[in-house]
């Protein structure tokens, strides 16, 4: 195909959009609606993910040091701990420091009157992990280090968090999948209508020896433009809606229970742009491509 024809093909595709003004409008509106739901869902999942991740970070493992070790010996274990691959950070906490915070938390409790910190409280390392799903394995490794007496780790909580994440993941994939299929069908139908409208032209093109690709391209362009226009409108609407919602919620959320990632935060922004562009492209191009196949026989 020569490059000079590309202009003609693209022009034909765009002409088609205006020729089928109402259907095109309907297709764009439905695409926008579907993508908005997909987008909102992605935003929600993204935020919940970030919150879960943050909470999970606070799920630390405590490694208690053998009483018989001197302060210096106890501290030196830190380097050994840090050699474990899954360890993100190991912070040494002196027994006096640990006692202080214990007193802070339970100071008024008469049950602890007369307790000697020297014999009750041990030096410890507060260990945060790279991946909490491997908490059990890492705790075992920590336990096997000489000089470490006992390890406290909340596997159940870690497992709970990873379950939440997995469920969210599956649910979002399912919802997004269904919505994409809906938009796909709608665009596909629009393009099918456009093709039906021009079936005589298509028949003539085939008769004079136009290749299938050449016949198809204007319709794919039409689907592509519809999909992209839908994606763009949905993206900016999503942005506005997201900001409005976050603003409302922040006012209500005086306890700071939620922390929202701003829409313009690079990672979220990139995810959203990628989602919308990919969805628009997918819906537009695949939608038109599949609808054309029926018309291409003979």
């Amino acid at each position: 195909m020569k490059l000079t024809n590309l202009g003609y093909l693209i022009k034909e595709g765009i002409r088609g959009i205006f020729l089928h003004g109402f259907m095109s409008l309907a297709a764009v509106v439905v695409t926008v609606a579907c993508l908005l739901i997909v987008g909102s869902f992605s935003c929600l999942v993204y935020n919940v993910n970030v919150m879960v991740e943050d909470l999970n970070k606070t799920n630390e493992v405590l490694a208690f040091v053998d009483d018989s070790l001197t302060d210096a010996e106890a501290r030196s274990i830190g380097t050994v701990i840090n050699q474990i691959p899954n360890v993100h950070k190991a912070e040494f906490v002196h027994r006096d420091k640990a006692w202080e915070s214990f007193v802070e938390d339970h100071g008024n409790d008469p049950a602890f009157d007369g307790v000697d910190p020297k014999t009750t409280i041990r030096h410890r390392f507060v260990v945060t992990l790279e991946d909490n799903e491997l908490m059990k394995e890492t705790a075992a490794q920590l336990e096997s280090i000489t000089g470490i007496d006992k390890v406290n780790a909340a596997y159940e909580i870690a497992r709970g968090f990873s379950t939440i994440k997995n469920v969210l993941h599956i649910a979002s994939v399912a919802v997004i999948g269904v919505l994409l299929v809906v938009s796909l069908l709608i665009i596909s139908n629009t393009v099918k209508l456009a093709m039906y409208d021009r079936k005589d032209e298509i028949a003539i093109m085939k008769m004079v020896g136009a290749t299938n690709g050449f016949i198809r391209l204007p319709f794919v362009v039409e689907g592509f433009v519809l999909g992209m226009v839908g994606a763009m409108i949905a993206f900016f609407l999503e942005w506005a809606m997201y900001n409005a919602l976050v603003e409302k919620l922040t006012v209500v959320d005086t306890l700071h229970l939620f922390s929202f990632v701003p829409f313009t935060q690079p990672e979220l922004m990139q995810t959203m742009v990628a989602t919308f562009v990919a969805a628009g492209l997918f819906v537009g191009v695949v939608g038109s491509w599949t609808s054309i196949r029926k018309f291409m026989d003979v």
Partner: protein
Amino acid sequence: MIAFSDVTKSYSVGTHALRGVSMQIEDGEFAFLVGPSGSGKSTIIKLITGELKPTSGTVHVNGYSLERIRRREIPYLRRTVGVVFQDFRLIDTKSVYDNVAFAMRAIGAREREIRERVPYILELVGLENKSRRHPTELSGGEQQRLAIARALVNNPSTIIADEPTGNLDPARSLEIMSLLQEINNLGTTMLVVTHERDLVERFGKRVIAIDEGLVVHDGTDGYYRL
């Protein structure tokens, strides 16, 4: 060149449209294809354009073997064969000029080539003064000329006309036939399907007559009987 060798064609449920057709039309030849309704004429045309595949036998058209042509080769075969239909199949929303240009655009011609070629072809068929009109503003004969112009514009080596004069009065029919003969004189192979015995006899060209899916007469004396 078009060559049929012992071609049969059966449609799905036992309709034997062709029952062993053999014939050969050389480059530059002019031939009439005649026969009663349902005898298999349109089936022959569809076999030539690759719209149908033969049930058995071989069909060669301008270097392509239709019985084993690949799908993606069919467009290129069709560029060598221009087809004119009885019902014209023009695009009413496009002007005369654009109807012809459309056929060139469909195969990726450049705009500059189109601007040169379309007026030349319109002049050849006598529509040079009506290029801005739409098909609905043309007479039947003019519409047929337009259909011929479109079939001709991509410079095919062969033109096939299926009942090109079916809708026209005798005088217009004669004009169209003369035009087809003129085009043939310029070197294009011409196969014309018709019912009009008067016209066939008048032109004195080769006549291939088929009946019930078989060739029953093939001669160059412009005469046939069924």
